[in-house]
């Protein structure tokens, strides 16, 4: 469903050029659970952002469901992000001005829906991540593990086919990390959601179907 061919990413600043990704070829099939590993600075986040249409590659091609991303207009891209992809960030990126349930509802605002539908879906998503009791809290009132669960609820509320998680447990202790991994594995197993997860944790990675290793922006598997 996501196809990367000869993807390359160069970051240019006034003084230096960083080649963050070199000739990446990757196909992600529906229902897969894939982890991306590699040392810090090896291009993992860059790769995930390009897959999630959050950034443009400087070379190569990205296809989602056979459609070229390069020629897409802003609102077509927005639509794809909204329908197909759910993102989970290492630093949660919740909106602190909104309550937990409003945060989770947010993706639904960008498609046709009534407020009752949104509320109901958001509560259901929060239920799946075990946070039904905290819906009226604000993100600043939650622990890191709870925040990441809110972020996952937000990622799944729109029932996307793929979830991209960038070090979702990077800021969490091992107990919470396991909880988060369980949630993701259940989503993959029970709902068939495709999952791509960046992780530093070898044990966690080994529980997934496939590991892609990056080093200095190149695939080394």
């Amino acid at each position: 469903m996501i196809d990367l061919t000869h993807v390359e990413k160069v970051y240019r600043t006034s003084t230096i050029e960083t080649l963050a990704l070199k000739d990446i070829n990757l196909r992600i099939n529906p229902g897969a659970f894939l982890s991306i590993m590699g040392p810090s600075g090896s291009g993992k986040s860059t790769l995930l952002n390009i897959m999630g249409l959050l950034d443009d590659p400087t070379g190569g091609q990205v296809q989602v469901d056979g459609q070229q991303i390069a020629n897409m207009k802003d609102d077509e891209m927005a639509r794809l992000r909204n329908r197909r992809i759910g993102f989970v960030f290492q630093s949660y990126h919740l909106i602190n001005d909104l309550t937990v349930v409003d945060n989770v509802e947010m993706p639904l605002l960008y498609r046709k829906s009534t407020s009752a539908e949104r509320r109901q879906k958001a509560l259901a998503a929060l239920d799946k991540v075990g946070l039904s009791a905290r819906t009226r809290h604000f993100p600043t009132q939650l622990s890191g593990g709870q925040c990441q669960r809110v972020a996952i609820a937000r990622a799944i509320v729109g029932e996307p086919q793929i979830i991209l998680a960038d070090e979702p447990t990077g800021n969490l202790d091992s107990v919470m990390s396991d909880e988060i991994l369980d949630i993701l594995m259940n989503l993959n197993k029970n709902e068939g959601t495709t999952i791509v997860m960046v992780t530093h944790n070898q044990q966690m990675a080994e529980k997934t179907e496939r590991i892609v290793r990056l080093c200095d922006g190149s695939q080394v598997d």
Partner: protein
Amino acid sequence: MLKNYIKIAWKVLLRRKFFTFVSLFGISFTLLVLMVAAAVIEQQYAPARPGTPLERCLYIDRIIARNDRSAYVASPSYGFLDKYARSLKQAEAVSITAPGSTLSYLRNHKIELQLLYTDHVFWDLLAFDFLEGQPYDQAAVDNADHVAVITSRTRRQFFGDDSALGRYIEISTGSFRVVGVIPHEGIPSDRTWGDIYIPVTTNRAAVERPQVWGRHRALILAPDESHYDAIKAEFQENVIRAQQDHAADFDSIKSEAKTYLELLLDPFEEDTGGGIGLAIVVLITLMLLFMLFPAINLINMNSSRIIERSSEIGVRKAFGASSKTLVMQFLVENVILTLIGGAIAFVAALVVLQVVTDAHIIPFGQFHINFRVFSAALVISLIFGLLSGVIPAYRMSRLHPVRALKGSDL
């Protein structure tokens, strides 16, 4: 969808109470200053309250007469205006007046009254709603009768709550019988202000003065603004005639019929003192500076808030908000803020202007909210809001989501 935007905006504004408070304060303070300033300026310098005949008036206020010995820069005399302005064919009416002040005694108190000498045309031209009595007519003016029209304020000063008709007011030039009372609030401009109005002919010396310069002025009612140029031109022909008539005394005579605005700018012209004009410019500059602070503050705060919210923009984009949607969201937020600020400012201005009016700080002061200024100010605030809030949001929304997200980590 608009409902959603409003909901989002409302939630954000409630959540960010401090920002909301500061913004509202900034917006309403800016608007308040603008409205109060506008009301004061309008009161002091406006040509006329909207809807009065003065809106289509020209003025002859000044004459410049030169010979090789000296130059006279002064008001025209009654004789000059009577001969060269009264006869303007294209004017609907021409009134000649002269301002003055006079002393009167009220229960052993000396008080100063603003005096306006007028002809009977003045009353036709201004069509006041008389509270009691009526204006003096042509016969009274021709006879130089000692009759007077006073304002409601003067009536209150002299006669309390009683009727003033038939009663006498003693001023320096004699005793005048009150024939009419006009509402103090109904006086449309500074050129028509007076505490007491008496026939121009009661000052015989001024009326019979042979010189071209004196202390009078003419008020010319045009059928409408499109006739201004023709009337001005016609008057210029008359001025040339005046120059010929007075060729023995003067090498040149200059006088012009002007709109109120031209009159205000007039002090900058050669030969004349720049006092009032300069004062106005200083006043306006000060006010603009004064308004600049809240405006800059507003823009600043707004932009930094958007940058602060770049992470929110990135997140929303990552979950499917298009640039258009995001811009709409910030637009709605700004519009709501500005409208609430406008409402607060409106109420505050009502209160402030009422207090200023009641306190009689400025004589004749009747301060009103000018709706045109209010709407203009509101539009300006909206533009500020859009420039400062929506443009950064737009630029941010064009970025790739990662860039916006990183903004928060900077």
